[in-house]
């Protein structure tokens, strides 16, 4: 199945094939360490993410949002509860769930094209087939001319586009993104956000996107989950009912501003609470 879907790259078909998968996060807790040093990073978190939905998780740093994302990826194990993708419990990483990290994490010993072709090759495609998939995806992210380049010679934004192409080359049904644009400058970030929305629209994939940038979350998401720190919990769910396609100008749309005000209020309240809690723990 992997082979077939990877082969005809619906990513480029132009329609919306809705190849996404649904995610169910069911009462998930993640505990690090043991005994006195144990640290509860994520505390009984639940949510349902629909097929093809774009969900952003926002929250202060250290609130456990990346940990939760890692649990959906299968890089982290839920101490209790379960993550299910299309009904099946996640027990480890799988090519079906693509992931993009804050750092591009490209393999420096491979060319840009070989980086993108890596997943398909692992899935058993021949080198020629994998190369074809890679070239198609590099085309999609606007880097068709850079296939033979070494990743280190590209700018940060371009490297991150390669990382996105690499994740999509596996034809995943879910794309998990952990502050992927956090290290980029403002202009590049804005461009990447628009680019990502186009790709998401083309591919019809489910996206879970972690960020601490509330503007980014409102611009991108169908739904925002606000997470609090110490321990990490969902404290609010905000539906972004702003029509698509969205242009950067929506940042001054009253609905955008309203969502932003409400979110910031919650985040401030939660940050203060977490801070006071930390103080109490120290004193």
């Amino acid at each position, binding site marked *: 199945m992997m082979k077939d879907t990877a082969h005809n790259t619906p990513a480029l078909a132009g329609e919306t094939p809705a190849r996404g998968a649904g995610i169910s996060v069911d009462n998930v807790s993640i505990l690090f360490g043991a005994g006195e040093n144990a640290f509860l990073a994520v505390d009984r978190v639940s949510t349902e993410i629909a097929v093809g939905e774009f969900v952003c998780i926002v929250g202060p740093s250290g609130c456990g949002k990346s940990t939760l994302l890692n649990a959906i990826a299968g890089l982290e194990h839920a101490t209790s509860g379960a993550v299910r993708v299309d009904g099946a419990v996640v027990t480890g990483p799988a090519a079906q769930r693509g992931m993009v990290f804050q750092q591009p*994490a490209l393999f420096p010993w491979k060319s840009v094209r070989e980086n993108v072709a890596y997943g398909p090759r692992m899935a058993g495609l021949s080198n020629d087939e994998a190369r074809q998939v890679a070239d198609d995806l590099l085309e999609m992210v606007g880097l068709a001319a850079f296939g033979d380049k070494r990743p280190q010679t590209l700018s940060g934004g371009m490297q991150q586009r390669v990382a996105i192409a690499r994740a999509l080359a*596996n034809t995943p049904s879910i794309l998990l993104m952990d502050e992927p644009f956090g290290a980029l400058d403002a202009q590049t970030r804005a461009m990447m956000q628009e680019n990502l929305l186009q790709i998401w629209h083309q591919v019809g994939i489910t996206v879970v996107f972690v960020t601490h940038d509330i503007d980014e979350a409102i611009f991108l998401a169908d739904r925002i989950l606000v997470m609090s720190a110490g321990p990490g919990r969902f404290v609010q769910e905000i539906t972004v009912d702003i029509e698509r396609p969205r242009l950067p100008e929506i940042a001054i749309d009253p609905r955008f501003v309203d969502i932003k005000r409400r979110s910031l209020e919650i985040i401030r309240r939660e940050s203060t609470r977490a801070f006071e809690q930390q103080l109490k723990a120290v004193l």
Partner: protein
Amino acid sequence: MSGPIEQAAGAERPAAKRAAGFWQGEAVNRLALAASLPLFFGLWEIVSRSGVVNVILFPPPSTVLGALLDWLESGQLLIDFGMSASRVVVGFSVGAVLGALVGIMTGRYRLLSSLLSPVFQLLRPIPPIAFVPIVILWFGLGETGKYFLVVWGVFFTVWIAAHLGVQRVDEKLIRAARVLGTPEKRMLREILLPGALPYIFVGLRTSVSISFYTLVAAELAGTFAGLAYRIDIAQQNLQMGQMMGGLVMLGVISAAADKLFAVFAEKAVWWS
């Protein structure tokens, strides 16, 4: 630059600049580079012939060159070179391959590391030269003993480089590989080996020098041909020219081997 005072002072600046520029210039630098070895050998020649030192014990380069040419003409130089080179090549190759393989395994599998690392850490500091007497009893004067000593010198250096290299592979790359669907059994070949390669090559390059040190010890312990052996024999016959010629050959060959390896390494791990 633009003020009247600077302009006035600037009158004598070009000369000063030219003087400083002369010593920092590219041409004079190239000249120094070209003069370095002739100056060294020239001075050596003069000092040797001046009578300040005993010319028998400190022969001039012309005598050394003569001895080298005699050595070459007799056909013995080629044999000595071949024997020494084969010891280095065989010992280095075996030690490097074993060291890299074992290092990758101990770096990857904790159980294996717990089992082997204490033993290796105990054996690693023993200088290969200290093994010479035992090696003679174990292997006699044959080639096996020579290989053993060079392998001993190379193995631990490459082992520790590979061991640490595997452990220092960027965690981000490993995670990226996992989410891209890398099967556990392909992780070693696809990610850990290339990730550790820059470290392994640092160990390998150090080992090139080590194999030459060890070669000398191995040949002094007794053999029938070889560059260091020739130095030993020449000493017994008080052939100073031949002895120094041997040193020159060892210096040239190990420097060439090091350079060659550096070029190879740059091609092999071009990304680091």
